């Protein structure tokens, strides 16, 4: 196990910059998730950690070694690929023991290490099968088994669950988290799925377009998104955003472009006069109050009701614990807790509330 430090790393393919200066410090034993929309450079960053991609500038340290110029095999890391990259001509057992075999570990010892790993992952009865004879979920486990057997300094995962069906994805999430709690190996995990990030990570790194937008614990990102991008990316359904300004006379009133008045969060009087974006999460809205919503769609899920409605001319989504029995077109009175609201500078996108 080791800490990992990524220090102002940049990467260009030809003239095309893909990673534009990323710094992340990962502590020993931490489970860190890189999350961001497709194409933002998550895989590239992970591959640079693995040594599969050259680093254009900056420094990566694993433990106390600078690994910039170390080939992959000397970095002591294991990676689980999105397509699993299992060797098709080797049995499950051989796939898992390949690295040990290359390292010249004696046969008996290999057995000793493969067996418990296979047991943890429920692969004991599949050891003699070939990858083609396995289901997607089983292949995914073999790929993890191959990583576990090595007992590396760092685990890298590149969207390991994206090829699985929804149900399996949820159960594998739990399983990977359990595994990490058991092995406590430093883990860097890439996904585009913010729910995966929220549920599994000790620390989330939100990336966008080759830069880091915010780093923090899942709930910190949820409660205090540093900018509009993070606010829109983290949380599902997404945060509602309304543009407008603070009332010149009374800074506790936020006036949207359509002239609708919403309660402003406290302590932001200095933002007076600026173009602002008002953010409120779907569950920050409660039934009963002075704000009128025109209901468009009602989606009851049983445990809660999700309502899509118009606030002025802006479409907003609200989630209530109560069951709401309304027809589309009807007016719903709601209130917004100002302490649950977020204010962002419309120009820079930065958060103004603390």
């Amino acid at each position, binding site marked *: 196990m080791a800490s990992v430090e990524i220090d102002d790393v940049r990467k260009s393919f030809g003239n095309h910059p893909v990673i534009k200066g990323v710094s992340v410090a990962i502590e020993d034993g931490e489970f860190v998730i890189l999350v961001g929309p497709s194409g933002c450079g998550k895989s590239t960053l992970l591959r640079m950690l*693995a*040594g*599969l991609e050259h680093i254009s500038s900056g420094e990566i340290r694993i433990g106390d070694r600078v690994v910039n110029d170390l*080939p*992959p*095999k000397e970095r002591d*890391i*294991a*990676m689980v*690929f999105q*397509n699993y*990259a*299992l*060797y*098709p*001509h*080797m049995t499950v057992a051989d796939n898992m023991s*390949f*690295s040990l075999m*290359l*390292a010249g570990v004696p046969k008996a010892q290999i057995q000793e290490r493969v067996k418990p790993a296979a047991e943890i992952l429920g692969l004991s009865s599949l050891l003699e099968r*070939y*990858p*083609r*004879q396995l289901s997607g979920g089983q292949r995914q486990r073999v790929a993890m088994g*191959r990583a576990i057997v*090595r007992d590396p300094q760092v685990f890298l995962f590149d969207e390991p669950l994206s090829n699985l069906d929804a149900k399996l994805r949820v159960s594998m999430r739990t399983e990977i988290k359990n595994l990490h709690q058991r092995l406590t190996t430093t883990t860097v995990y890439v996904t585009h799925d913010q729910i995966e990030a929220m549920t599994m990570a000790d620390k989330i790194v939100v990336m966008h377009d080759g830069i880091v937008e915010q780093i923090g614990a899942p709930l910190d990102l949820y409660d205090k998104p540093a900018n509009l991008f993070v606010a829109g990316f983290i949380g599902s359904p997404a945060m509602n955003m309304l543009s407008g300004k603070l009332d010149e006379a009374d800074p506790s009133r936020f006036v949207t472009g359509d002239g609708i008045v919403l309660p402003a969060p406290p302590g932001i009087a200095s933002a007076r006069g600026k173009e602002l974006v008002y953010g409120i999460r779907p569950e920050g809205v409660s039934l009963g109050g002075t704000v009128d919503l025109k209901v468009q769609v009602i989606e009851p899920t049983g445990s809660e009701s999700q309502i899509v409605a118009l606030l002025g001319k802006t479409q907003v989504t609200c989630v209530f614990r109560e069951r709401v029995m309304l027809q589309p077109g009807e007016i719903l009175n709601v209130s917004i807790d100002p302490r649950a609201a977020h204010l962002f500078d419309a120009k820079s996108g930065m958060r103004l509330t603390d």
Partner: protein
Amino acid sequence: MSTTMENGKAAPRPGTSMLMRLTESRNGLGLFFMLPAAAFLLCFLTYPLGLGVWLGFTDTSIGRPGVFIGLENYQWLWDDSVFWMSVFNTLLYTFVASVLKFVLGLWLALVLNEHLPFKNFFRAIILLPWVVPTVLSALAFWWIFDSQFSIISFVLMEWGWIDRPINFLGDPNNARASVIAANVWRGIPFVAICLLAGLQTIPQSLHEAAALDGASSWQRFRHVTLPLLTPIIAVVMTFSVLFTFTDFQLIYVLTRGGPVNATHLMATLSFQRAIPGGQLGEGAAIAVAMIPFLLGAILFSFFGLQRRKWQQGGAD
């Protein structure tokens, strides 16, 4: 080739005509659709092959229909040292040329699979020896191997490595080496391009996974590339061996089997005896004698070509 031979599923309903039943049953319809191909094969493959085999049992010569003489041609060949020489030559030629083509072709494919500048240009160039007509390249080699004006001899003499031109095609062993070299030159592109195509089907992530697992580049080749390439190698080398074993044009242009039959292959000897020599029956018998060898090669590759255990099972 396996045709689907499941039982016809159509339950015969009362009152359906024979024709109806035929078109509704899978086997009947299958048979019907195979007829044109079968007729074609019969006319253009089976008939000549059958005629050749029949000729081998007769003493036919050009201009005179022969009579059936049983195995006399084969008995005669059994005691014919030239025939045995051609068998030896064919095996040597096929073995050495195929091994060289495989090794050099694989090497070339691996090189072309790397990130080279002008990669596509080189890939196109590589195909040249294969696309020029054999006779043309044979003529070029004939000139290259000329006993007096050979460019090879000239260069080696310039460098002072030898004093006299090498007698490439005049000395039996030199001649064998020379025709093998020409065959290898011609055959490499086929092997290299096919193996290159095979290499490109191996996902990059497997190489990356192996690199992370600690494999050196030799170990990656040995444990990942080579095993995954074996199905393609089996196909390519089967064809390569068959082409080489039945080679004719190169030899015929370069040496006509000489000197003193040192480069006669079974194919060239068969032609030599049958057409210029006029002994159609004997020539046919030599050609028929190639069949067991070819069958052996096909059987060998049949087992090599079988889907390996790891290739079976569900798709990815």
